[in-house]
């Protein structure tokens, strides 16, 4: 999974939100075919996605589809970065989608494994079995936890919703641990459904990032700027972690693998964390 902070969800029947100038800042585009559209509408959605994909020379383009439709949608839309599979709840279902995509790759002479899967988690069962779904196929690039307000997961748990309250916190952390345990460097969070509430979006995205998520779905071009910024390391963080590396390097040269910086103990673990932050900053062009 290539580093991705913002994935703009584009309704396949209304792709014109891509014409908004702010849409150009999204790290990836997702054509949403997740609704069980009538066949004629689905064909139109697929055509829109195919046409718009052709106008995206640099950004990864994804589709979002339920397991049942994946093969037909991939066939129709053509070469894409991957599929966000919605509504799956077991490793067996993910394995079936894996085979369906492999068949499509073979028909279109695409390299095997070139189309990735993001498993969307939006039921209690999916979250509970997230670790098994994450390792169900090699092409699973990451998990996307969808705990959006009044979304399917909230409905399934019959709980309330708040930005940093206890209602979905366990599930949000559980899914994160499952993704990280499967060595996924870019665990993704779902959308923030209050489109006009940019302060709420910022608060929610800050919680998301602190928990360990590295990107999220966005529903509207005006959400992209804040999301990209919050999931990027800050200049201060990069400067601090560069000092961590330099300080530790000096200490090691003098025969110590543990030293204090600004009063805090640092050792090899902190050096590894520092390298991860700096790598991430490089991915976004923030650090040299």
């Amino acid at each position, binding site marked *: 999974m290539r580093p991705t902070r913002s994935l703009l969800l584009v*309704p396949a029947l209304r792709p014109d939100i891509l014409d908004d100038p702010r849409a150009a800042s999204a790290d990836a585009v997702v054509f949403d075919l997740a*609704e*069980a*559209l009538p066949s004629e509408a689905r064909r139109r959605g697929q055509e829109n996605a195919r046409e718009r994909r052709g106008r995206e020379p640099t950004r990864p383009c994804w589709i979002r589809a339920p397991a049942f439709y994946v093969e037909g949608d991939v066939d129709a839309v053509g070469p894409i970065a991957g599929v966000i599979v919605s509504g799956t709840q077991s490793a067996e279902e993910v394995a079936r989608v894996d085979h369906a995509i492999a068949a499509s790759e073979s028909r279109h002479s695409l390299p095997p494994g070139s189309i990735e899967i993001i498993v969307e988690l939006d*039921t*209690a*069962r999916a*979250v*509970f*079995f997230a670790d098994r779904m994450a390792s169900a196929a090699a092409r699973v690039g990451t998990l996307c936890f969808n705990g959006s*307000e*009044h*979304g*399917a997961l*909230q*409905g*399934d*748990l*019959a*709980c*309330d919703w708040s930005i940093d*309250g*206890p*209602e979905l*916190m*366990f*599930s949000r952390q*559980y899914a994160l641990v499952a993704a990280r345990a499967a060595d996924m460097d870019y665990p993704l969070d779902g*959308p923030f*459904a*209050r*489109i*006009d*509430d940019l302060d709420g979006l910022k608060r929610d995205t800050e919680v998301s990032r602190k928990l360990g998520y590295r990107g999220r779905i966005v*529903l509207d071009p005006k959400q992209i700027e804040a999301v990209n910024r919050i999931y990027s390391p800050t200049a201060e963080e990069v400067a601090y972690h560069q000092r961590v590396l330099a300080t530790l390097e000096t200490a090691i040269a003098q025969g110590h693998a543990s030293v204090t910086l600004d009063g805090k103990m640092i050792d090899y673990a902190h050096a590894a964390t520092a390298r991860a932050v700096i790598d991430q900053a490089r991915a976004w062009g923030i650090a040299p």
Partner: protein
Amino acid sequence: VRPIRSFLYAPGNRERLIEKAPQAGADAVMFDLADSVPVAEKEKARTLVAAALQDLAGAELFVKLNDADGGRIADDIDAVAVGGLRGVLLPKVGDPEIVQALDAALTRLEAERGLGQGRIEIILLLETAASIVRAYDLASASPRVVSVCCGTAEGGDLSRSLGSAWSLDGPERTYLRGRVLLAARAAGIAWPIDGVYTNLEDQRGLEVEATLARRVGIRGKLAIHPKQIPAINRIFSPTEEELSWSRRVRDAASDAGAAFTVDGVTLGAAAVARADATLAQAAAYSR
């Protein structure tokens, strides 16, 4: 069947409390054969509860069994598996095989006694560390399991099992409830319930605990005294605000399938399902 917001405990050896319990306003009664009955009175309690199950038929009647380790459970169910019994509460359960054994025993008794097959429900009281770890396996051990109860009472078995402290809204329960609720919903349990609030003099504490439980998705609560019932029923019913939101969602969602907006929140099919469930629940409670 309407979800049960409140269960009122009644000690199985106390005849007057047994008779009065169904009039206390609780959605269901939980006759206790377990910890509130002295060992010497277990047999008396079985007899009294069995009689009450016949006499009070029509009310939602449940029985809390003794735990499986004490060797009393076979006599308990032999006494109470009768027509008036809706379900049993199985305490201190940590092993799915115990649930399966109880299921098999109930199936035998239902067949012998001409009761509807698979009709007697099981609620699991999760109150040991093992029960939290194995919550999903326990909840999916039998189709009779309709609910799980996270036994988070102050000074109760679970906090002893974990060695943890207790506070009204502190961090001790965050992981326990989160894990149990996720596992229960993953296993298809529709109405997880909450354990007892032990301080009878602290009405505010009861309300704080029940409100927090409701927020995270718990649907009802065990009560140890009739005076706890009104607050529990109120807190686990849909609020006016929720009903108003549900009606507005219904109105806004007429356009089939497409996303729509209510109160600035982009909504889809899941919100419509939630609105319908809330309206249906309110209708059920007002009957």
